[in-house]
Each structure stands twice: as C-alpha cells, then as structure tokens.
C-alpha cells in the first residue's frame, strides 16, 4: 500500500461535492446515503470534516466478516466488499472505528470506499483540495512540520514577514 486519502478540515468548505460524485460514479444516482465519503458537520461551529475508510493494515472489518466478503485489492491497497458474497449482516459497520462501511438500502448489502481503482473520484471532485490522495511516505513528513509549527507558533507569528508563504 503506497497511497492514502488524507483530508484537511480547514480547507473543507462542507460542499459535499465528494458525496455527490462518489454516489454518481458508483450508483448513477446522487445522494449522501449512497456515498462512501461522508462529511461530518458541527453546525453551530461551521466546521466540516470529510470521513471515509482508512484502509487499515490489519482491518477489523475483514476480521469481523464471517463470509469472507472483504478482501484487499493488492494493487491499490483498498479493502473491497464483494457484494456477491456479502450477506448484509452489518458486522463490519458495527466494528469499524470511523464509520466507513455502511448499509445500502438500494442493494441490501454493505458498501465502503474502494479507492476507485486507485483514482479516487472524491479527490478529483473536491473543489478546495481538502481531499488528497498522497504517498503514505509523505504523510509523516507533512505532519511533522504541522506539529512542529504548533510548538513554535508564537515565534512564527513574530517572524511572519521573514517567512512569506511559498507557492510550490
């Protein structure tokens, strides 16, 4: 597994274009209930966070699935639900810590993010760049810098004019 979906709640404007695109590509219809990416909202604060499957290395959904319907796509690393095998028991949904597998009324089976064969629709559709598909190796580096920035935030503020934002 070399790439993963990373979300940035500061950039997310809560437009749910990801939900519309995901459901349209997978079902030919638009609706949050059919989307594998869901935007969680704190209404009063105006904060939104897109949430989807993290494609765990040791997935408890797979462990919980008694029919063997959940397997890994070795090319993309996505955990895939084989709907021909799935019996809709919902165990995967109950054990997942981030609420990724969901029950689809349309097909009476479980569904979850399949990374669109390595070219995720939600990433392409997001107009703000809040959803990214990045190399796993690059994530800790970015996070290190984010974390370090918090530690020296006062200093960064003071030195703001010597440290202008750089366009990549």
């Amino acid at each position, binding site marked *: 597994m070399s790439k993963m979906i990373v979300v940035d709640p*500061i*950039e*997310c*404007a*809560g*437009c*749910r*274009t990801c939900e*519309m*695109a995901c*459901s*349209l*590509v997978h*079902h*030919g*219809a*638009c*609706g*949050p*209930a*059919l989307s594998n990416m869901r935007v*969680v909202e704190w*209404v*009063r*604060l*105006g*904060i*939104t966070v897109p949430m989807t499957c993290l494609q765990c290395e040791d997935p408890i959904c797979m462990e919980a699935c008694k029919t063997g319907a959940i397997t890994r796509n070795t090319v993309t690393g996505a955990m895939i639900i084989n709907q021909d095998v799935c019996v809709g028991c919902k165990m995967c949904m109950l054990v997942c810590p981030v609420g990724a597998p969901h029950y689809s*009324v*349309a097909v009476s089976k479980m569904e979850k993010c399949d990374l669109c064969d390595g070219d995720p629709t939600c990433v*392409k*559709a997001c*107009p*703000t760049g809040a959803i990214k598909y990045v190399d796993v190796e690059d994530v800790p580096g970015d996070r290190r810098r984010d974390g370090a920035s918090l530690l020296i935030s006062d200093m960064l503020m003071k030195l703001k004019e010597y440290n202008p934002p750089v366009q990549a």
Partner: protein
Amino acid sequence: MAETFGNMGLILKLDMTSLSSTTEDATPLYKKYLGGRSLNHYLLLRDVNVAKVQAFDPENELIFGVGPLGGTLFPSSGRYQVTFIAPLTTSGLGDANSGGAVGPAIKYCGYDSVIVKGKAAKPTYIVVENEKIEFLPADDLWGKGCNDTTEILKARHGEDVEVMLIGPAGENLCKYANIRTKLTNSLGRSGGGAVMGSKNLKAIVFKGSKPVKIAEPEKFLELCNNLQKDIMDPDMGPIHGATYELMSKYGTPGLTRMIGQTGMVPIKNWQECGIWEKDEELDGPGLVSRWGMKRDACQGCPIHCHSIYHVEGKYATHGGGPEYETTCAFGHKCLVSDGAAVLKMNTLANDFGFDSVELANMFSTLMEWYDRGIIDASFTDGIPMTWSNADGVLELIPKIAVREGCGDELAKGPYWVGLDLGEEALKYVYHQKGMVATGVETRSTIGAMLSFAISNRGSHHLSGLPTAEWVNNPSVAVYVAGYEEAGDIQSYHPEAKSNLVRYYENLFGLPDSLGICKFTYGHAGFWHDSVENMDKFWDYLVKGTSYATGIEYTKKDFEEIAERSWQMERALIAMRGMRRVDDMPNWRCQNEECPGDHPVGPIPLPKIDMEKFNKVVDQYYKLRGWTNDGVPTRAKLEEVGLADLADRMERYL
C-alpha cells in the same frame, strides 16, 4: 407513477390543522413547469385563492420547491425556493430562495416540493423521514434561537438530518422574519418566517435516504466535471475570473468596491452612494483577514462564498456569512464602520431569524427619521437612533424579536412604520411595494431601476438586476438585449432597457426553478466576458437538465417556461390589486439626486427622469403583453398556455 430521474416524482402536502399528510404525483408537471419556483407558482395559484387570502390565514400555503438539478453533482445545486402570500409586501407575493442543504434533503426524502397549509393548535415541528411523517410538539423549542434549536433537533433525530426552522422573530409574527437553515443560509425576504410562525410550525426536519437518480449518469458526470472546471477557470475571462477569485475568497462582501464603481452602493440610508471611506473595514478582505476562520459552501458549490467568522472582545461572536447585503445594510446604510459590530448584528439577526436586509433597513430608516426630527429617542424606548449607533442597534434587535416595547411597532418593517408615522416619514423609506431595497442605489443604473421598480415581490436585485448592464460589456449587451445601449448605465433607451430587464428576469427564474444558484448562473459576473461564454452557459443548463431528467429540454423550452412563470407571478399580484402606480420608483428616486464618490457615472446621480422612465415602462409592458396598467392580457396568458389563469384573473380585476 413512472420512474423519475432528476426529479423525485412526488409533492408532499402537510396539513397543520389536521396534522396529516398526503402526496400528489408531480410527474405530469415537469415539462410545463420544470420545478422549484415555476412549479411553486403553479401550485400556489391552483390551490390558494390568491386574490383574497391574507398572509396569516390558515388557507395560506408555504410551498417549498427544489427542482430537477437540486441535490445532484451539478455545481451550486444546493438551493430551494419558497412561495407564499407575504405579510411584508403590498403586492402580497412572498418569494425567497436559499442555499444550504435543505433543498437536497427534501429530495432525498423523495419529494420535489413540500406544501404546508393550515394552522396547528399549538407549537409543532415535523419530521419527514422518507414516507414517514410525524407531527411532534414543539413547546420546548418555542422561544429558542435558531442555533440552539438546530443543535437540539440534530441531537434528537440523528446525524444525517437537515433542519429548516424559524426563530423567535417568526414565532412572534415579525413581518420580516425569515426561515433559517444552518449558520449561513436563509429563505430571507418577504416574511416567510412569520407565515411559518402563524401556522405554529417551528421546524421541519428532513431525514432522507433516497438518491436522485440520473437518467444519463456518464454524460452528466462529464458535464458536471467540465462545468466545475470552467467555473473555477480564470482563463474564461477577466470578469468571470475576478468574480470567482473574489467570491471564493471573500464572498459577496468582496464585491463591495466593484459594486461601488458606478455609485451602486447606498450609504447613509440612500442619501449618499458609491465608494465609502470606510469600505475597507467592511469589504471581504477586511472581514476575512481579521475574523475569518475558514470558507463555507452550500451543497454542491465550488465557490464557497460564505465565511465562518470568530470575533473576540467587545463584540464577541461566532457565526457564518455575512453577505454584502448584510454588511452594506448594517454598515454603509447605518454608517456603522466597526466590522466586529456588524458581524455581531449578523449573528443576532440569524439566530433570532430576521431578514437582515429589512432589519438593518429598519435601523437606517430610523436613523434618518431621528436625524430629521421626525422621531425622537422616546420612539425607540429612550435609545437615540443616531448614525453609527451600533450599540443601540444591538440593544433593539432582541426587543423586536420578542416584540417588547418599541419592538412591537418596529416588527412591522420600515414601510409600515413609515405609513403609521405619516407622509413625511414615508419619503425616506427606500422601498418598492412595501419592501426596502437591497444594497443597490437604483439611481445609478436605469436597468436596475426598472427591475427594482417593477419587481413583483418588492425592491431587490434577485428578480432581474441586469448583469450585462453593470459589467458593461457591449457584445454581451447586444447578445442579451439587441442594443448596445443596454450596457449604458444611464441610458433610458426604451427597447434596450426593456429587453435587457426581461432577459434577466426570465434568466433568473431558471436557476430558481432548477434548484441551482443564480449567482453562479446569471446574477454574478460569471459567463459575462463573451457571447461564446454565454452560449456555453446556456448549453450547460439545458444539457445538464436533460441528462439529469431524461426529459428533452431545449433553450426555447426554458425561455417559454421562464416567461410563463413570470406571467403567473404578475397575474398573482394583479389579482391582489397591483397596478402601474405600484411600479413607479419611490419618492427619493423621483425627487432627489444622490451625491457620492465613484469613478463611473455622473456625480451626483441625477434623480429619475420620469418622462423617460415612463416610456421605458410603456415599452416593457408591451414586450410582456400587459395592459398599460401592468396587467397581463388574456391574449398573452393564452399564448403561454395559461388560459385557466386568465379566467380566474378576470374575476378579480
């Protein structure tokens, strides 16, 4: 019912008197009425005796309509429209449109439109969960603000619900109460919140699990992807690119300087106009750089024109928005230059459930009356309504919401308070048909003046403020109106200005009927750089709707639907007694010139030349097929397929 695409197939009818619901097959209505606003007109005229019913009668209906593109991947498709008989306007046309996510949520429950009629015996809220409809007691929610109520209902009914509701202003029948959703969105103007309050309806909660089926998913996906790219593409042209840049970073307040170029920004209750020396305190960058936290969008919109703001200190507050309409009305019109105070006013207006435009105009009008000695501090419970008195405004807003002291009178709105005070006071109310204008100095641009004056709902930019006039692009002016004079802001060319305004009135009706945003599709500067872009834009609308619905629409169909919709709206207000005299500009426009500072257009702006203006109105009426008194003719109504309506209308003329 046949399988439907784009649309959901059903109209939900909720009766507050009997606390029961029924449904109606909507499928036969799509081809002729599309959906949203146009379909709302048809339903209101069909179901309600619009000539007689008053706003707070149980027979009045609140009709919420979405449209075939609402809740899909089509960019900016988070909108819905409400239509009703209004308490605020003299024309009685109640009409408002909102973004957010309630429109899509209505469709995910399986409905294209929701009609609410009747009156409950006590405070009630409704939960719509697909086919299951529950009427629940709202005693514990009555009196609560919009934010608290939304949080409670979300906690009570689950994560995946959308809430549409009123605040105390609506409960207490304030004539300019709105219907709210989330931090940033309202069905804003003409008093729908009060009508909802009169029905004892606090909120409707939508919890739907149905998708909007798309007839041609692959084509639709490709079209939506291309359209989103074009909306965000600066290479589409300088006007298009600047509009995206300003709207996406700062929202409508980012347009303040652009609007002020021709003197279009009103200052000091329309006594001055144009560029204000305090603009930087209130324009987008000024607000966003100091208090902006992040961007916020309606469903499906790549423009994210709202800001989430957070203020600490004297005016500590947290909220969403604001719109230019709010910053201009509380700021420029009241001479309040402290951005933090204006944000606080915005939060309060939203939480109490007020139309912030009418509310702020109540204050700017009070300030002018106070300045002229028409009222003194005793009129406002001892608070002197001096210019810039932000603390006075903040003290009075809650009193209006609960109608305490002077709040009881002020809850009627500037026009009706002016009427109570007498002729001199009424001169300074900058209104049409009882509704005060949005942030547009109409003496600056004659097309805008025409649009605001003849607007069926009252004075506002959303009925047909002609974009091609203020962007002043001659090729687009010719494209939309046939004459270059259409783009000349001070021209009274009868044909040019009539064609221009009619074009935009019809154009703006389409997004409202499709469930998409008129800012993206006609009202803001998008697409207005060239004729090619305008053609492209029409193509997206027509093809997008056809791919979504599987119903073959052409541009001509859309033009006919928009014309029919406008004729229905006009017939409605004609039945309620509106005539040519009601289409005339307000006293200030006719009698005063307007000083100001602006790079384009004459200074001062001259008063409206009524002889020339009347010639434009004559031509406009002719173009619409109306009598010289502004009433649709039978021949015209028959021509657009509304013979039944002609019969009914004639009974009430």
